[in-house]
């Protein structure tokens, strides 16, 4: 049976982008709502919401962003912040079960977030790192993922609500890492049946490089072949989306037709 196609998490509503930062500061809903609608149109299944460093009161900014987006679309949101209280602020106002982004394999932190996800009927994204930092090899990533999967199973979060992120690093400063990510992804698949979702924050791989789009789409296709089924990415990058849709077809996750690109876009 074909797996279902890639889950696209639109990355553009993030305070680190200048247009978003300005809109948050001025509390101007229009650019945010337009970005939300445009990303959905471009293929986003979820919308990442990240206040970044745009506000001195990030809880309020998160709530404003969530409400502002929900005025124009029912697309589920990804509440993206390393701080628990900002996630909780988002959860207070979010209408549809969101994806919480993120926690990690540190048991104490993991349990708090799993509890939160269970209480809110939410999904949870976990990074394969712990107190000792981001792993630099395959094995520690797999160890972290195993801790995450088994804790989620014990606490009762279904695998279809768990996303594991092996943390992709910029290729221009850690060139051996993408290979490790591919190896880690293919091992994550065997941690449970059904497996959890496997996700990356794609654009990180090309940070600071001039050929960003090319690096992103090549990396995405490689990761998909290793089992990736979700990604936080820029859905406005048409070449990236075309490569992703084509990889979906080649991996038999979508039924081929001569107009398969069009079919995907008219979903």
């Amino acid at each position, binding site marked *: 049976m074909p797996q279902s196609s890639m889950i696209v998490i639109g990355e553009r509503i993030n305070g680190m982008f200048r247009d978003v930062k300005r809109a948050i500061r001025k509390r101007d809903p229009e650019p945010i709502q337009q970005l939300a609608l445009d990303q959905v149109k471009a293929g986003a299944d979820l919308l990442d919401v990240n206040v970044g460093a745009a506000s001195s009161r990030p809880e309020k900014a998160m709530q404003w962003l969530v409400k502002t987006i929900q005025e124009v679309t029912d697309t589920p949101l990804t509440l993206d912040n390393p701080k628990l209280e900002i996630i909780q602020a988002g959860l207070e106002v979010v209408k549809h079960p969101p994806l919480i982004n993120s926690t990690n394999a540190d048991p104490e932190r993991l349990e708090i977030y799993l509890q939160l996800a269970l209480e809110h009927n939410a999904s949870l994204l976990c990074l394969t790192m712990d107190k000792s930092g981001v792993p630099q090899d395959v094995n520690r990533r797999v160890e972290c993922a195993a801790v995450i999967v088994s804790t989620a199973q014990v606490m009762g979060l279904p695998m279809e609500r768990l996303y594991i992120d092996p943390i992709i690093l910029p290729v221009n400063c850690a060139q051996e890492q993408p290979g490790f990510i591919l190896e880690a992804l293919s091992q994550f698949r065997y941690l449970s049946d059904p497996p959890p979702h496997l996700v990356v924050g794609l654009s990180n791989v090309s940070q600071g490089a001039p050929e960003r789009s090319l690096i992103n789409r090549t990396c995405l296709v490689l990761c998909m072949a290793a089992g990736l089924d979700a990604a936080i990415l820029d859905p406005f990058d048409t070449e990236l989306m075309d490569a992703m849709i084509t990889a979906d077809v080649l991996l038999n996750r979508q039924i081929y*037709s001569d107009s398969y690109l069009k079919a995907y876009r008219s979903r």
Partner: protein
Amino acid sequence: MPVQRVVQRWSGSVNVVTVGPENASLQLGGQTSLPFLYDEGELPNPPRIAMEVYDKVPEGWPAPLLEALGDVVHDPVAWAQKCVQQWQADMICLRLIRPSEEEVSLDSVAQLARAIQDAAGVPLIIWGTGEGDLDNELLPQCSQALRGSRCLLGVAKQENYKTLAATCIADGHSVIAESPIDINICKQVNILLSEMDLPLDRILIYPANGALGYGFEYAYSIMERTRLAALGGDRMMAMPLLAVVGAEVYRAKESKATEEEAPEWGALGPRIVAWETCTAVGYLQAGADVVTLCHPEAVETVRAFVKELVGKQ
């Protein structure tokens, strides 16, 4: 060791297609699970049985079938009426063969279709001759004569769909989209139709299935895969499915050879009923939302089967 009960939940659902005139409409599709798996999702609309009616008795039909249908086979309007009143057909499938064999005015064919709709009072399927050019003239006439009756008109193919799509859009009918037991072309035809602005909930998929013994497993697996794609969220595959049974069964040698010619196959009468029934029941398990049948006894058995399975809901 306790066995974990595996219940599959799906994100997608089959489109709901509404057919028939206002006072006698039916809905097709709408499932959120594979056929008859009531623990996994909803099956709001049971599969429907359409009885095939022809504008002319097909050549080579077996005597026991003609006997079971009676004299009405020479009068399509009375035939359709009897299908509904006596054999409780949910729908009528009018299959047109005369225009490709004889000189008939297309207007008279359209009038016949209209008369059958009026007499039968159930949703109507109009099945063209299969000759593309002829159907492109014939079906628009039928479509106009049946305007507002929300019929199913067929068939649209990858190489010939524009005329039918346009006329169905104009007159409010739905389209039967044919693909030659090919899932990729199936999706492509649906995309092409939707690009003509035909709404997705006005398309049925016809996978060009055969009778039992004639590529049955092939069509079955295509239908199953179509349904899995629909439930997985592929909107271009989410149309209800139609399987042709009668017309396919009566092309097979098993429905023609008499007992004298093939004694090991047993009596022809029960054999044709069994052939239609088994073909239909198989395709219902594959996910068919409409099956078209000829023999009244097959209709009765298939209806009992559907009732039994729907009763488990």
